[in-house]
């Protein structure tokens, strides 16, 4: 039972990282980024290609791949998303959705649909004795590093000027601009940062999950449910809901395997009935 819950926390770490990126992007840009899962997949593939073709190891890939994809994200925002933003939100839905399919198919064409192997970094190959049970060291590392990253984002958002501006712009874009604060300047870095978080989750996933072109689209539907459960645009909510959904689905997998796919959505429906704005969302935001 405890071990299942711990599995859930590790799975939840991926949900939390992805949902966090989606939440800051949605908050700041009002864009639901359907390509988020594709960038997670590209993160995993990026580290696979680096290792396979150039022998670049995990510890280099972990910072490098998110930075490169984050920069690619800023270019994407400048070239396309910014131009579509003044139009109906549907245009950016369709754009990011189409982009996800394109990225997925490009990778599929190059590497096929089968999973590619990615070894665990040798330093984390063993197990850790957690007192009640032993657990693979790599999974413990994933959990720890995710908690640290989510915590760091939280500190930046609540304790720094840029965080205050991002939160202000998310809640009241018009008032923030009327106060003389240039909101547009922060949109590109925030988008790039959200993409980098997705890529980071992808690199972390490579050694413990199948690296294949569909890994992002398999995961992202659940992540959308996580964001809705946490409350659209709520940064804290998305992280908390990420870990919670991880635990619920791991326990569900173990005790009621027949429901494992639907459990998250049952949870989402229940939360929405109880709190229509999500657990940490504000009613007003709807």
């Amino acid at each position, binding site marked *: 039972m405890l071990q299942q819950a711990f599995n859930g926390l590790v799975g939840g770490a991926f949900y939390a990282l992805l949902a966090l990126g989606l939440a800051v992007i949605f908050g700041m840009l009002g864009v639901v980024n359907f390509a988020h899962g594709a960038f997670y997949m590209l993160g995993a593939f990026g580290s696979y290609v680096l290792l396979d073709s150039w022998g670049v190891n995990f510890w280099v890939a972990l910072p490098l791949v998110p930075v490169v994809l984050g920069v690619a994200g800023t270019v994407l925002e400048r070239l396309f998303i910014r131009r579509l933003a003044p139009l109906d939100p549907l245009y950016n839905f369709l754009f990011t959705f189409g982009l996800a399919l394109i990225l997925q198919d490009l990778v599929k064409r190059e590497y096929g649909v089968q999973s590619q192997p990615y070894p665990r970094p040798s330093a984390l190959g063993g197990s850790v004795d957690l007192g009640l049970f032993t657990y693979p060291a790599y999974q413990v590392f994933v959990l720890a590093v995710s908690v640290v990253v989510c915590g760091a984002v939280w500190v930046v958002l609540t304790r*720094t*000027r840029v965080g*205050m501006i991002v939160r*202000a712009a998310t809640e009241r874009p*018009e008032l923030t601009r*009327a106060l003389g*604060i240039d909101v547009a300047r922060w949109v590109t870095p925030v988008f790039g940062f959200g993409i980098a978080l997705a890529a980071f989750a992808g690199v972390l996933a490579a050694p413990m999950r199948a690296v294949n072109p569909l890994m992002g689209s398999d995961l992202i539907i659940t992540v959308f449910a996580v964001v809705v459960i946490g409350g659209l645009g709520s940064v804290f909510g998305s992280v908390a809901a990420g870990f919670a959904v991880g635990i619920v689905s791991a326990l569900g997998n173990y005790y009621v395997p027949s429901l494992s796919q639907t459990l998250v959505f049952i949870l989402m429906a229940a939360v929405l009935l109880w709190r229509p704005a999500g657990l940490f969302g504000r009613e007003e935001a709807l």
Partner: protein
Amino acid sequence: MAGPVRGAPVLAARGLVREFRGFRAVDGVDLDVAEGSVHALVGPNGAGKTTLFNLLTGFLKPTAGSVRLGPHELAGRSPEHVARLGLARSFQITSLFAELTPLQHVELALAGRTGLGWRFWRSDKALRRFSGRAAELLEQVGLDGHGTTPAGALAYGRKRALELALALALDPKVLLLDEPTAGMGVEDVDRTVRLIQRVRETGDRALTVVMVEHNMSVVSSLADRVTVLQQGRVLVEGPYAEIRHDPRVVTAYLGDSNAAH
């Protein structure tokens, strides 16, 4: 009531037009706001008052025409740029950050103006260096003692007072108030009128104010000049005492009894 002041125009619009899919919400408006005056924009619902406000402050781009604030052309500039040039606005609908305290609101507004912009990692301690000025502004609008209550928990009249403090934090040349007494009871209306009078006179010289206002008693007690808008055009302009009996104004307001009380 203040006497008519006719200084040089500090804010001037020429031939402002805004079309929405062929409909001209603002249709060739000229407006001169004299330095140090209170200028009211009135008119029936749908006359284009709020659209005009949004054109002046950069929230809408004009289809044609110009807006000058002193030496600066404002048409086509972004809202944040307009605000930094000295044209501050309030919103018709109460618009505050629910979780920030009044003190934090004003600190944010002060920080925005000084444009520390890119200094990313400065902690919120950097904001606190504005706290002296922020406390002063809160006192000015009568919110001393409420500085640390989350804004979401403030009473309606206090929220509007906080909005006024935010606009003042920008140290504006011209203050635009969009229906400052909307939705208020008689007592709050009186308090707001006194508040606006008081904050205008706080600086070295009287602050220029442009306001959209439905309540004619507020207009009569505050405004030096009144511009009456109808269907996106200026119907008549002059001191309140003159325009109130103008037959065109009386006609324009017929069928909008709401606005005439």
